[in-house]
């Protein structure tokens, strides 16, 4: 009986309720793409509204009767679109793909484990995430529409069902969906941390792990430490909404001419709890993307990563600092200026470890023999995005300049660079890089390059331009950008921004076609098509059940590449050191 027959499992066991980390990783990745279709779709509707705020759109009205009325996007639905675009992108696309998707797929393969520490918990994690997705999508179909209080769900807007149409059932479903997401993410993080600490193969010390694993490790730890604060906030918000409590509601609130009975609470508490998660969440998403960039840059540049250990220390410092800077999202909330000063200084201090990471990425290219594969292109463009996003971050992290820029399009442009472009490019780089290992076939490079250039031109133009909108005073979440005369000198930018983003969105169609076509029709992949040194390339493509026939032993670091002017050489992590001369003799 062949090994295939031994592992012959039913379709359901193999593809639906699988406990194999690789299948779960792919499930997360595909779910992320599926949710991405919604999130990108919503952003297209947002951009249509901003580019042509006064147009009559009977076709969209017919397609989405709940969102449009007489060819006009309803303002309250616009707020729902903005809210859900943010929520779904952050938690259900980027987090799914980068942390849960690549994390599940690559951690055991990178550290030489057969599976996660607790595979059943891993499966449970995915199947907790699925109902969370369903709740989020379903919230568009309840009376009064999806949540409309912004992805930050600030009370009192989110706490009072009568405050805004989306604060009814939509907000409740949003909270329940987030609760399930947090449960799922926590289960995943428990597995990641335990697996990385306890299941490394012989010879795989912490300082021989690829940087992708390091970043996923730090992300998981941050998730474990930060998400409980949001859980607490979500529970209290649910109680405020449905239990009549006043955790976040001060006395004297008036809605619709009626004074509410709530008293004694403070909405500021929610902001603290939310951003105690919210800020580390940015790093939870950005760090794995940077980790992937390091791996990709080393493989396609044929050079060892510059400053491997300093990168790890920088990552650890970023992890610590990310937990103590949440207040920089609240400079305008009326906090004590001394506290704001502290949060400013701590925030700007993050620049130092981040610059170390960026410089190490750039220095890794020194004397490199760059192979411009799509994965490499995305990794290189990501370095640019880190730089641009980081520069904007300096303006926003400094309290005095943030006072002016807060809640403006400058913020929108900034965070779309950091948790939009950096993370999305991380997802793409990882997908192009690991595609052969995932599906046993090569992904088409030409389509990949089209995808890269169209995406890059679109997003870099659009998000740089948004910074100028913000400097001109345009506020985020504005339904009608022409409403204020004083912004007229910059709002013309909305049309080119929309067109640039439509181009980027169209590029994703190319990507998806390429992805699915290559999955079934691509050229068969060898075990190690990139001549990469890390462990996942020592097993056939696609990686078999339980990953290796015999677990590999590790003898060296992950980045032993070398260009000596003649040939690109590398040593896989499993290659033993050459024995001393006397042994050989």
């Amino acid at each position, binding site marked *: 009986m062949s090994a295939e027959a031994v592992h012959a499992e039913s379709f359901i066991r193999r593809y639906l309720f699988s406990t194999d980390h690789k299948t779960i990783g792919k499930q997360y990745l595909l779910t992320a793409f599926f949710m991405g279709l919604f999130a990108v779709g919503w952003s297209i509707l947002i951009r249509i509204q901003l580019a042509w705020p006064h147009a009559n759109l009977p076709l969209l009205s017919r397609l989405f009767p709940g969102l449009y009325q007489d060819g006009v996007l309803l303002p309250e639905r616009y707020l729902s679109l903005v809210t859900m675009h943010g929520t779904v992108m952050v938690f259900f696309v980027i987090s799914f793909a980068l942390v849960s998707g690549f994390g599940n797929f690559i951690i055991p393969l990178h550290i030489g484990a057969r599976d996660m*520490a*607790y595979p059943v918990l891993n499966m449970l994690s995915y199947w907790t995430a699925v109902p969370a997705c369903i709740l989020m999508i379903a919230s568009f179909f309840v009376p009064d529409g999806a949540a409309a209080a912004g992805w930050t769900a600030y009370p009192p807007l989110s706490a009072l069902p009568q405050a805004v149409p989306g604060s009814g059932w939509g907000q409740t479903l949003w909270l329940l969906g987030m609760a399930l997401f947090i449960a799922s993410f*926590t289960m995943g*993080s*428990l*597995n990641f*941390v335990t*697996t990385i*600490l*306890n299941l*490394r*193969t*012989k*010879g*795989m*010390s*912490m300082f*021989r792990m690829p940087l992708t694993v390091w970043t996923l490790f730090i992300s998981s730890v941050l998730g*474990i*430490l930060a*998400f*409980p*604060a949001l*859980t*607490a906030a979500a*529970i*209290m918000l649910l*109680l405020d909404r449905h*239990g*009549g*409590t*006043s*955790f976040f509601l001060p006395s004297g609130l008036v809605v619709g001419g009626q004074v509410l*009975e709530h*008293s*004694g*609470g*403070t909405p*500021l*508490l929610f902001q*603290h709890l939310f951003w*105690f998660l919210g800020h580390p969440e940015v790093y939870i998403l950005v760090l794995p993307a940077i980790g992937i960039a390091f791996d990709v840059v080393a493989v396609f540049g044929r050079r060892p990563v510059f400053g491997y250990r300093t990168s790890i220390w920088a990552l650890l410092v970023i992890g610590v600092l990310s937990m103590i800077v949440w207040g920089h999202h609240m400079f305008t909330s009326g906090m004590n200026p001394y506290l704001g000063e502290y949060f400013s200084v701590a925030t700007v201090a993050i620049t130092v470890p981040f610059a170390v990471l960026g410089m190490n990425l750039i220095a890794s290219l020194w004397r490199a023999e760059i192979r411009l594969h799509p994965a490499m292109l995305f990794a290189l463009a990501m370095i640019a995005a880190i730089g641009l996003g980081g520069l904007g971050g300096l303006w926003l992290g400094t309290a005095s300049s943030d006072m002016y820029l807060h809640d403006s399009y400058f913020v929108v442009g900034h965070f779309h660079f950091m948790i939009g472009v950096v993370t999305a490019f991380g997802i793409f780089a990882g997908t192009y890089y690991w595609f052969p290992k995932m599906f046993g076939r090569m992904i088409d490079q030409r389509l990949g390059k089209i995808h890269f250039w169209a995406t890059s031109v679109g997003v870099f133009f659009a998000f740089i331009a948004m910074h100028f909108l913000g400097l001109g005073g345009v506020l985020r979440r504005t339904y009608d950008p022409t409403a204020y005369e004083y912004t007229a000198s910059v709002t013309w930018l909305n049309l080119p921004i929309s067109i640039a983003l439509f181009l980027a969105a169209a590029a994703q169609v190319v990507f998806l076609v390429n992805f699915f076509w290559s999955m079934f029709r691509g050229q068969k992949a060898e075990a190690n098509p990139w001549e990469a040194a890390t462990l996942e390339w*020592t097993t056939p493509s696609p990686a078999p059940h339980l990953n290796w026939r015999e677990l590999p*032993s*590790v*003898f060296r670091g992950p980045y032993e590449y070398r260009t*000596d002017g003649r*040939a*690109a*050489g590398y*040593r*896989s992590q*499993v*290659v*033993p*050191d*050459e*024995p001393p001369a006397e*042994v*050989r003799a």
Partner: protein
Amino acid sequence: MTTVAMGSSETAAPVAHWQGGVSPFAVSWQKLMMWIFLVTDALLFAGFLASYGFVRLASPAWPEQNEVFPMLKIAAMTFVLITSSATMATAVGAAHRRDLKRAMVFVALTALGGLLFLLAQATEWATLIAEGARLTHNPWGPAPFAAFFFMITGFHGSHVLIGVILLTVVALRLWRGRATGMGVEVAGLYWHFVDVVWCFIFPLFYLL
């Protein structure tokens, strides 16, 4: 140095080069995972308690706890719960020595302590509700006072309840001779955690 073929079967490298593979804390993954879970759970309670502190500091006045809670009863509850940690530790020790019968008796005693605590908690809730405490308001002070009380003690109580169920299962498994020392220890970790959380709730909510 040029490309080295993969899987080249040269002489195996000296073992002295082996650096990893040993878990840094020398614990099983089950125990490690429970520890990490307890960290996140502890932070959930920390979130609640910090919120409580935030709202209390922002409130102009706060009720005198002595006048609201029967402190002697709360102290007795605390005593019972902390004692149950001692019986739990005895059970873990016995289970590691494979003295399963003794372990079972002490796990059952621990569960009994948890049940007593829950019973006292339930009567305390009933008394306060009879005196007019609600999620929305209360007769003693700012509305969030009772809301925080019900939420924090409710969450802690549900943790105790889960612990009692867990311990019952462990006791049954010990009775059938199927529980391992590590299984008892992991359940014990959870139980000690529930205790430690109370050690924060008790002073922060009832005493300060």
